[in-house]
């Protein structure tokens, strides 16, 4: 039994930290949400070259598929580093896409893994114990949408439908759409400029996470030969990566809040000596450590127990999402109001937490899937 990081993993993490330190991404996140036209506004820096240079698009792609052939935990480590500094890198979008292309042995796998093609995955969730449909994000409401439909002709698929709130859709070269083709979930690669495809930029609240509503009206794409397992696995991987980002943020915020609680005095004592502050910061630690344990479970399941991946990834998302929500609020609270002001970084993390909580099925959807897997009798390791 050894869950410690390997030397390679330590190196990967350090390298990621170094690559992301070249730009002050937190400052960039703030400047990007300033009103366009104001002197403080600046568009987000384009970190895609950094992503490509670091080899992240191909992290999970097999060596045969043109990638590095690493494990989910490696990708999670990178996601933690990216989350910690709010780096605008589309891991939750390109990595799931790459795994599908790799599983399919697709001709474009190597280009996606190498970053020559920026392929955004259009998220589709596998069925649950209660709902036997594959589903996609709706624009609003608690009812999820059905997959876009596809009609197959040779290798070509004609697509109709809509998927809301797709990460990185506005910046992608291609979209990897999951469509219902005669009752089978089917991956379809569509060029960004294809006729019948529109991507409405709906980036909201946190500029570091570009979002688009994807509409398909007789848009034509190319079929990718991935099976339902590979397509479902992409969903779970995305959940685990979101969880990784969240944990990275919590690990960044806790020391900041602790330091402030030590130096800030009120009524003659450091505020961190008061139980109301101390116990809440310990709660952040508890949630953080639980979330880290769940990241390990997700990564372990991905490698050793694929039948548990849905449970593990959903639990990681649910636990890390809760930790992130709690930690961002607590950071604001410990700072006694100053933490809610624009100059402080805490609001930027709060915005990230609020938005992330509602993407890709939402934290609540993840908790629901945890329940569903347990009710269906899946036994965690």
């Amino acid at each position, binding site marked *: 039994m050894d869950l410690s990081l390997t030397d390679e993993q330590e190196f990967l993490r350090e390298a990621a930290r170094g690559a992301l330190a070249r730009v002050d991404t937190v400052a960039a996140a703030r400047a990007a*949400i*300033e*009103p366009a036209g104001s002197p403080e506004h600046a568009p987000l820096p384009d970190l895609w070259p950094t992503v490509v240079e670091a080899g992240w698009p191909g992290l999970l792609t097999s060596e045969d598929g043109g990638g590095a052939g690493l494990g989910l935990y490696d990708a999670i480590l990178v996601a933690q580093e990216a989350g910690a500094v709010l780096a605008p890198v589309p891991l939750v979008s390109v990595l799931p896409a790459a795994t599908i292309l790799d599983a399919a042995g697709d001709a474009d796998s190597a280009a996606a893994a190498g970053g020559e093609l920026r392929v955004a995955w259009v998220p589709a969730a596998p069925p649950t114990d209660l709902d036997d449909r594959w589903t996609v*994000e*709706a*624009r*609003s*409401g*608690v*009812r999820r949408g059905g997959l876009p439909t596809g009609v197959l002709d040779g290798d070509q698929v004609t697509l109709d439908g809509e998927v*809301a*709130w797709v990460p990185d859709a506005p910046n992608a070269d291609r979209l990897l759409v999951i469509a219902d083709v005669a009752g089978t979930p089917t991956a379809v690669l569509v060029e960004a400029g294809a006729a019948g495809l529109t991507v409405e930029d*709906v980036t*909201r*609240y946190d500029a570091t996470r570009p*979002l688009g509503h994807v509409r398909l009206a007789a848009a034509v794409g190319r079929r990718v030969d991935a099976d339902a397992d590979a397509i479902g696995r992409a969903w779970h991987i995305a959940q685990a990566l979101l969880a990784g980002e969240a944990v990275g943020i919590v690990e960044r915020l806790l020391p900041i809040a602790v330091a402030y609680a030590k130096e*800030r*005095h*009120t*009524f*003659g*004592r*450091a*505020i961190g000596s*008061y139980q*109301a*502050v101390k116990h809440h910061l310990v709660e952040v630690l508890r949630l953080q450590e639980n979330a880290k344990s769940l990241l390990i479970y997700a990564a372990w399941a991905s490698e050793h127990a694929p039948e548990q991946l849905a449970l593990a990834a959903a639990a990681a998302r649910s636990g890390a999402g809760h930790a992130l929500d709690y930690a961002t*609020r607590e950071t*604001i*609270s*410990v*700072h*006694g*109001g*100053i*933490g*809610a*002001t*624009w*100059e402080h970084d805490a*609001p930027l993390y*709060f*915005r990230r937490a*609020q*938005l992330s*909580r*509602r*993407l890709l099925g*939402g934290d*609540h959807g993840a908790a629901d899937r945890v329940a569903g897997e347990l009710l269906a009798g899946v036994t965690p390791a």
Partner: protein
Amino acid sequence: MDLNDDPEQAAYRAQVRAWLADHAAQAPKVRGADAIADEDERIEAWRGWQAELAKGGLCGVTWPQEFGGAGKGPIEQVIVNQELAHAGVPGPLDFIGLGMMGPAIIVHGSDEQKRRHLGPMLHADEVFCQLFSEPAAGSDLAGITTRAVRQDDGSFRISGQKVWTTNAQFAAFGVLLARTDADVPKHKGLTMFIVPMDAEGVTIRGLRQISGEAEFNEVFLDEVQVGADAVLGEVGGGWATALTVLMFERLSIGTSPIGYSAEKFAAVIADAPGAREDSDVRQRLGAIGTELIASRFAGHRLLSDLAGGGLPGPEFGLGKVTVVSAAVSAGDLIADVVGPEALDDASEWAYMISFLPGLKSAGGTEEILRNTIGERVLGLPPEPRLDKGVPFSELKAREIEGVA
């Protein structure tokens, strides 16, 4: 058990309603999507509206008549608040001056101060702000470090920094708490001043919140000179004056209408596809509704107490905890149900979701309130105080050494 007005109150309500029916058309739009966009224009229009309200006797409802008030009680203030809400028009611009600063001047001010300030305040010719909170003092008002040094000519020079100041950007005066003597224990040695906001050395800076809006201001004071006649109350008696202000603040919060309503939240939920049938959504809405309805009836209970001659105790602050927590939960629920669209700037919910975390925590508000209520209402023993009886100057030195 009676929620209704007695005959005298009913008559007053009818009179207020009639006045508002005649004048509502003049009221400017100051909030929401159709508010006047330019801030200066909006403030000017609102100023005019307050002057109009004052003419109608709807400002300074509880102020004595000799100072231009209506000489009524808090119940009548509530009736005015209710009727303003019912008519869909804004209240006065300077709720801080009318609700807290004016009453403090009435209690502690010199005759000259009353003469000079109360009239212009009532008609919004001169808006007031409250300069108590400081970045370093947080929730501990007695720990403030802004200092006022008496000059040989009897005037004072004030230097320091204030924060969380509402309305500073257009206020004419601020009521400021400063330390005039650092060598006595920290509740002592404080003095209250009335400071012109356009005095040399005063700098005002907007403090933007998560939403991107500047809800509050920072106010910097650099050797600001004020005369001896700027002292409100006694030199060294600032703490007592501050307590008066806080008491009026409590009353003012208690009698204000509640800003968040269960019905409004329910209406959004009802519109989101699938939400109404979702038992998790229903449980959450049920809990939020329960709390908000409770807080509404807590308000009725307070009024009943006031009518019986009581004054609100510190436990009344729990009503604010209830409303803020319920509204935070409602923001969470709405964004969960509506989705990311609820976070868009154009959404009416993004502002609430962004604003509340700061409101909830500014100055450790909720924790301090729970301490106060635990001690004053439940009679629980206080935390051990390390700062009791220690001169303020020594206390700061200890803190810097990290041994306090």
